[in-house]
């Protein structure tokens, strides 16, 4: 028997998703603009590291140019599939009191954000696919994962999504205490950029930096699923990775429950 709260949540997600899809379609030009960022950033880093590889005897961090192309194109897709726009509008929600109607709903506000996020991806994935065709022709990536790795990509992707979504929401919650969170958001995005494998494959970093990275949740959001998809992980490494993802997903969910209760107690708004 499916519990009442779960059925309500699913119904809310479905309704919110449909509405959000319709609204976002009206702003499709703006959504397409976000794609410029999503496509350009990996292309920039790919170009830079390819130049480094060519000047350094054909490879950097164990990646030759075509493997680098595979890495950055895969990570482009993984970033897009796991990202969420919560950080962009959360501060305004708290500062302007837009949270009030959301708190009156029978489900947690995160459910609505989830639906909005899914609607955005449904809208923009076809465009990303079209861009990928061009990029594959231009950069000729090398992607050759073994069959077992391909099978593990779906759970790894789902776990990466959960870790990233919940962690982002946690960072956004700091708005309840700090109100002005731009610097905190920038710090978080920076950590994701360098420790998550967005700016460079982790193997390029010095050993101590890689150790710091693996102790943080960031590589488990991005670098691990990317390396899995590329077929660069041994089965034991893949198993450890999935375990770490589960660990961070559980830890972040527990933290979210605690912080959310504290946050709502702090929240006051006028009007709205």
């Amino acid at each position: 028997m499916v519990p009442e709260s779960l059925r309500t949540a699913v119904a809310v997600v479905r309704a919110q998703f449909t509405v959000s899809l319709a609204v976002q379609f009206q702003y499709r030009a703006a959504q397409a603009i976000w794609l410029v960022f999503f496509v350009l950033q990996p292309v920039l880093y790919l170009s830079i590291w390819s130049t480094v590889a060519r000047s350094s005897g054909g490879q950097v961090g164990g990646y030759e140019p075509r493997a680098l192309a595979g890495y950055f194109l895969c990570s482009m897709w993984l970033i897009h599939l796991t990202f969420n726009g919560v950080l962009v509008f959360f501060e305004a929600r708290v500062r302007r009191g837009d949270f009030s109607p959301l708190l009156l709903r029978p489900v947690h506000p995160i459910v609505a954000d989830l639906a909005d996020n899914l609607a955005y991806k449904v809208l923009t994935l076809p465009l990303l696919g079209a861009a990928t065709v061009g990029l594959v022709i231009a950069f000729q990536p090398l992607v050759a994962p073994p069959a077992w790795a391909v099978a593990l990509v779906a759970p790894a992707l789902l776990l990466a999504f959960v870790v990233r979504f919940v962690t982002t929401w946690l960072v956004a919650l700091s708005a309840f205490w700090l109100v002005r969170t731009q610097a905190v958001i920038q710090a978080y995005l920076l950590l994701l950029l360098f420790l998550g494998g967005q700016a460079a494959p982790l193997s390029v970093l010095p050993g101590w930096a890689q150790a710091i990275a693996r102790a943080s949740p960031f590589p488990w959001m991005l670098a691990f699923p990317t390396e899995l998809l590329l077929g660069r992980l041994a089965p034991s490494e893949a198993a450890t990775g999935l375990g770490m993802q589960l660990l961070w997903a559980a830890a972040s969910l527990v933290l979210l429950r605690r912080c959310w209760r504290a946050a709502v107690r702090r929240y006051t708004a006028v009007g709205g």
Partner: protein
Amino acid sequence: MSDVRLVWLFIRLGMLHELAYGTNLVVQVVSSTLGLVAALLLLLAMFAQTETLAGWRAPELLVVLGVFYLVTGLLGTLVRPSLQAFVDDVLRGTLDFTLTRPRDAQVLVSTKQVEVWQLVDVGLGLGLLGSALVQLDGRVGPAQAVGFVVALGAGILTMYSCCMLLATLAFWFVRMDNVLIVFLSFWEAGRWPVDMYPGWLRGTLTFIIPVAFATTVPAQVLTGQVAVVAVLGTLAAAGVLLAVARLVWLRGLRRYTGASA
């Protein structure tokens, strides 16, 4: 009150507003420093097995990075937040409150919002430039220094005109309120010299969104890779773009209809 004094007033008001959020400022300093450390680490990793990258040596790359931080800080303090506020104003129809003021609308729109904590990036950029100059020891003469400052100024004006042109599109395409993301995405390419990118990207960064003029060219002038005379070209480009941005702005303004009471 002259335009300059007005801008200075906005800056002071912006500073007062921002300084009320003290934690944000502290976190910003920490965050920017971390970002710089990480960027330097990546630079070290890049030069682990080679002396030059696309003809550029490590100190020269440091100059580019320093200029990048410097210009990012300068644009981020005044231009970017103001133009983003402008785009939001057009979307909501509240631009009227700016247009009814007795000063040139373009000046007001470009200076309305100040984010003081972005000046941290300016400080970091100057620090990077200083240390890069030490490593280049003695190869930078007075002519290069002057040429660098002029090229930098021209580059900043070019970037301003670009941002202005993009933001002005809001008059025609009201629902593209994140249009500045286009600029910011290409701006990230300014961290490294454009020579490191494939041909088609290099062309885009020189002729379509001329980020090359803001970071690569001033660095080339400072390190002597490009003759100081070339600076005149960048000044001309900046002048032309400023004029174009102004014309497009005036056309766009005629289209605007507000929604405020």
